[in-house]
């Protein structure tokens, strides 16, 4: 569990806000507005992008060649956001995203990163023992599959395009999107039909 902030941190935050407010740098309204905008981003966006890519070959091509444009095509505002790259899983390659240096994450299409993504254990282990990390999510990949860890070190943000699972033939985009979880978009889990 993430520990609650210590009292001195809470006090420091309020002093910082007071100092910045007194100088006319920000207001409580701006903070609330910014937080509301940030709260609206969610992994449902990434899931809808994947579902559409599974059913629309043109969109799939766009998603893989220009993730930013593909996000904008779904109504996401990408101005000011880092460019989005999308990595395609295949029968012989599985991607797993981590940021070993901090916590880079495709927030525009996935929302806030979960606590575990930012944890020292995930950052340390994903890059060195990816199969051990995947096993903690119950994800086991056969030996013939290459696990490709993506260490998000610089200006891009990365999302995984998982493979469409068997047993989903004829499903609507909406139904497909419902099985694409945030964990599938990071690469620790695989979408399941049932």
């Amino acid at each position: 569990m993430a520990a609650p902030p210590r009292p001195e941190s809470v006090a420091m935050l309020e002093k910082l806000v007071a100092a910045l407010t007194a100088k006319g740098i920000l207001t409580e309204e701006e903070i609330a507005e910014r937080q509301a905008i940030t709260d609206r981003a969610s992994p449902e966006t990434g899931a809808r992008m994947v579902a559409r890519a599974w059913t629309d070959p043109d969109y799939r091509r766009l998603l893989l060649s220009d993730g930013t444009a593909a996000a904008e095509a779904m109504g996401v505002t990408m101005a000011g956001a880092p460019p989005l790259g999308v990595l395609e899983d295949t029968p012989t390659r599985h991607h797993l995203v981590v940021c070993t240096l901090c916590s880079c994450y495709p927030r525009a299409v996935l929302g806030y990163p979960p606590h575990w993504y930012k944890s020292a254990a995930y950052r340390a282990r994903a890059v060195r023992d990816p199969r051990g990390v995947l096993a903690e999510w119950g994800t086991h990949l056969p030996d013939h599959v290459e696990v490709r860890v993506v260490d998000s070190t610089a200006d891009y943000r990365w999302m995984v395009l998982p493979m469409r699972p068997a047993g989903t033939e004829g499903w609507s985009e909406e139904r497909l999107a419902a099985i694409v979880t945030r964990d599938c978009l990071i690469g620790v889990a695989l979408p399941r039909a049932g």
Partner: protein
Amino acid sequence: MTEAGAAFAPGARVRVRDDWPEERGPCHIRTPHYVRGRTGTVERALGAFPNPEDLAFGRPAPRRRLYHVRFDQRPLWNEGHPRDTVLVEIFEHWLEPLAEGSP
């Protein structure tokens, strides 16, 4: 296709500079320790971005080419699955061409 102005094309073998600026003083670098001095393969060029090493100190930041470079996992850690790889974003000024026949 080599991206216009890019020093390295997809498939190029490169070596990451074995440099440790954090041992010389305050700095901010985006090249993780575990690939320094290591050999990888350019997957593709990712465009150019203001150098974070300057941005972090509020200095004027010239744009630098960025690449996705792929490394085999096993040589990095002397353990792991032989097929597994890691893909890292690395700026051009951290990369050196690898001469033909080098290890």
